[in-house]
């Protein structure tokens, strides 16, 4: 398996695809840091505990309200694209080029092929995500001059890990399609289609969760607070069908320690009663808040990989 891993890694790192993706996400990270640098003063008060984390969460004036803060938005936009780009032709390209049967007639187990490819993709994913976070953190450190505290470092590391696993989910999904479909184009379209659905219609513009919520708990100006909370709650539950929502919530809780609840209505109520921004949660509490989200992302990645693994192992070689 090590040989497959090494070759795939070398292929990825020398491919044009990797260079394009890297430049893209590198520019986005610089842009996000630039925005953060220009707006961070407005968000920081003498009582702010976690200044360094603000680098990742500061929004700009005129930045659309429906979107997460710039850095979070860019990273949640690009991670699935990178994952898909790394996986969509993993198996189908080998099959189409006539390499697969030659490869499988070598003295290696069949799963070495898919494991090696998956691990190499994971490695590349880790390199990209770690370097992007490092760029933002490094630039930010230089620009704002405030070093991160130990808890901030911990939160950033967990954020990076979650991002890698989230990317692994999209890669596993793309690998699955590359096993199922003979054509790389079909496999890419299928994965991108799912991504567009989950990202735009379930997360960024949650039209579907909204529709379900409105159908089950209709609200108007006269609705009670209770109804409103319930409405938002149902929308949230439906939204969590999408891995993009799960990731968005997990990241929000990790990099915004002040986030006390995932229900915006409840959050608004507590802020209203407190009369100020909530005090930050300890790391453990933030983690607990999005524990289900984290577990779901890991499970989704594992399931997708397992299904593609089984399909690949059982595939009749004739059709390969």
């Amino acid at each position, binding site marked *: 398996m090590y*040989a*497959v891993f*090494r*070759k795939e890694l070398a*292929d990825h790192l020398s491919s044009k695809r990797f260079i394009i993706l890297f430049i893209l996400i590198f520019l986005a990270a610089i842009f996000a840091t630039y925005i953060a640098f220009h707006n961070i003063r407005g968000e920081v008060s003498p009582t702010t505990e976690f200044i360094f984390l603000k680098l990742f969460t500061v929004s700009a004036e005129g930045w659309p309200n429906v979107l997460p803060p710039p850095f979070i938005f860019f990273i949640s936009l690009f991670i699935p694209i990178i994952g898909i780009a790394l996986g969509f032709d993993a198996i189908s390209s080998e099959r189409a*080029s*006539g*390499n697969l*049967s*030659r*490869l*499988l*007639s*070598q*003295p*290696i*187990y069949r799963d070495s092929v898919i494991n090696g490819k998956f691990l190499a993709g994971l490695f590349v994913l880790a390199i990209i995500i770690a370097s992007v976070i490092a760029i933002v953190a490094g630039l930010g450190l230089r620009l704002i001059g405030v070093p991160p505290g130990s808890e901030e470092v911990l939160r950033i590391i967990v954020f990076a890990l979650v991002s890698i696993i989230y990317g692994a989910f999209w890669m596993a999904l793309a690998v699955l399609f590359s096993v199922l479909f003979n054509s790389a184009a079909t496999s890419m379209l299928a994965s991108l289609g799912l991504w567009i659905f989950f990202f735009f219609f379930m997360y960024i513009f949650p039209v579907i969760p909204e529709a379900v919520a409105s159908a089950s708990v209709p609200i108007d100006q006269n609705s009670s607070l209770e109804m409103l909370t319930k409405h938002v709650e149902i929308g949230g539950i439906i939204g969590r069908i999408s891995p993009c929502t799960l990731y968005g919530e997990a990241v929000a809780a990790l990099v915004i320690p002040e986030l006390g609840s995932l229900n915006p209505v409840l959050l608004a109520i507590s802020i209203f009663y407190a009369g100020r921004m909530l005090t930050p949660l300890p790391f453990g509490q933030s983690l607990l808040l999005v524990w289900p989200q984290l577990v779901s992302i890991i499970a989704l990645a594992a399931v997708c990989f397992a299904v593609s693994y089984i399909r690949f192992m059982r595939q*009749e*070689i*004739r059709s390969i």
Partner: protein
Amino acid sequence: MAQVVVETKNLTKAYDNFTAVDGLNLHIEESEIFGFLGPNGAGKTTTILMLLGLTEPSSGAAQVCGYNPTREPLKVKRIVGYLPEKVGFYEDLTARQNLGYTAELNRLSRKEAEERIGDLLATVGLSQVADQEVSKLSRGMKQRLGIADILVKEPKLAFLDEPTSGIDPEGIDDILNLIVSMAKKGITVIFCSHQLHQVQKICTRVGILAKGRLVAEGSIDRLGRQAVGGGRYRIKVQVAEPDPGLIDSLKRIKGVIEVQSSDNLLFISCDKDLRGQIAKTIVDSGSILVEMKIEEYGLEEIYKKYSHEA
């Protein structure tokens, strides 16, 4: 006694709706070039995949160099090379890098791999283009690279699935010569092809597969006698100034069954090789013997006969 390399007993592969290979009994010995023939869809590739352990047989057993390919696929794959019909390489790697990857998958040490790959590229005549990307190689070159690729692991047995399809005549000769030289080095070759004259040129034995069954197996001349000549030898004789009594005296030779004549040509059917006696008879009769040979049976006729029968 030559070592048995491939032995199958009632090897069968059945899919839901059809049987690809049906009770196949093969017996292939060391250093043979075995021609594996049959129409498309006859089950040749399925048989190869089963022998490599890439597909599980539904029933029956196979032994490849003493290993069971279903139970010990890695041991089999370590000593068996397979050149698939539509072989492909990583187009953006060079010929040398592609072979290097194969060597790495076969756990050769780097030094050993480098030496062996250099030698092999020279053997298949690709030293000049060894460091060019595979996408720039011609089809014939890729096919020769494929042969180098299976030789990297120094196999005992090689399956070549249509190695000459779509290649120009010179390229075909190169590949056939390579196959013959492989066999001389002690590698057993199983050669699948539709190009019957190529098979006839290099194969010591052939097996004809039709609808998953082995309908004929043996050396080409024996199959020919069975299939076309009804099990008899046909001897073609050309004489000058034939003696009128010649045909009668030929018919009197023990073992001669029939003599046909047209002009100066005589076709003699007999149940064993009687060339010596025939020559003596002709010379004794006072006729002049110009040429005499045993008629060879074209593989084409044999193939047609057997595949139609099935």
